[in-house]
């Protein structure tokens, strides 16, 4: 059990994933919600890399992780631009207070 294998990495990733979701759901500040998203993406990346290594799937997993990292960067850029825009409009970035559109 304590012998580190694939499962260990996966469990870490699973926890990271869940924490990411938890962060996304509970944090008021939009920037911190974004942090949660980054955690989710990271956990997926760990999966890819771990699977690739233990499953002997070649470097495909790493490539995918690489793509995801790049994507995360792009997404973060856009996300922050939007958050800034929100800040300009609403003077705060509390996601739960931005609920003019509803029902």
């Amino acid at each position, binding site marked *: 059990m304590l*012998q*580190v*294998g*694939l499962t*260990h*990495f*996966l*469990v*870490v990733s*699973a*926890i*990271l994933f*869940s*924490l990411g*979701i*938890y*962060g996304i*759901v*509970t*944090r*008021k*500040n939009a*920037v*911190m919600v974004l*942090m*949660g998203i*980054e*955690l989710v993406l*990271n956990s997926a990346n760990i999966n890819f*890399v*771990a699977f690739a*290594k*233990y*499953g*002997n799937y070649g*470097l*495909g997993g*790493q*490539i995918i992780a*690489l*793509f995801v*990292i*790049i*994507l*995360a*960067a*792009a*997404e*973060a*850029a*856009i996300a*922050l*631009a939007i*958050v*800034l*825009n929100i*800040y300009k409009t609403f003077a*705060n*970035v509390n996601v*739960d207070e931005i609920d003019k559109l509803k029902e």
Partner: protein
Amino acid sequence: MNYYDIIFYLFAIITVGSAVFVVTTRNVIYSAFFLLFTFFGVTGIYVLLGADFLAVVQIMVYIGGILILLIFGVMLTNTITNVEIRTGTLHLLPAAIGVGVFMGAVVSVMIWTDWKSQPVANPVTTTKSLGYLLINEYVLIFELLGILLLIALIGAASIARREKE
């Protein structure tokens, strides 16, 4: 228990522990710094998994880029004079229940699944192979990512820039 294992646990604890702080601490700045540790931990895990290039990219892009971006975001969207930049939390209970169940599901999936597990030693360096793959098999995605970045650039610039009014 060998060194590999110990290092793994170390990084795993760093990763998970700081991630816990990331999502629980009320201070945004703290949170950002804990995120740094998380990313760092992930980097370590990458190294343990033999993904050296990825680890570097993780440090450069994530820690050097995204995290800085996030901190900028924090700075730009809060009054700087306010020393304690705090954030509230909401629906903790449903989130805790939902995520708890969810985590249980994910973790049990991870544990009980009979994954294919026949690790082979990675080549010492993966950079070259990755490069080769990038412009061969994954060239389409590579190009697509280029366009994606262009779009992100345009989009971010477009949305963040001040109106002339």
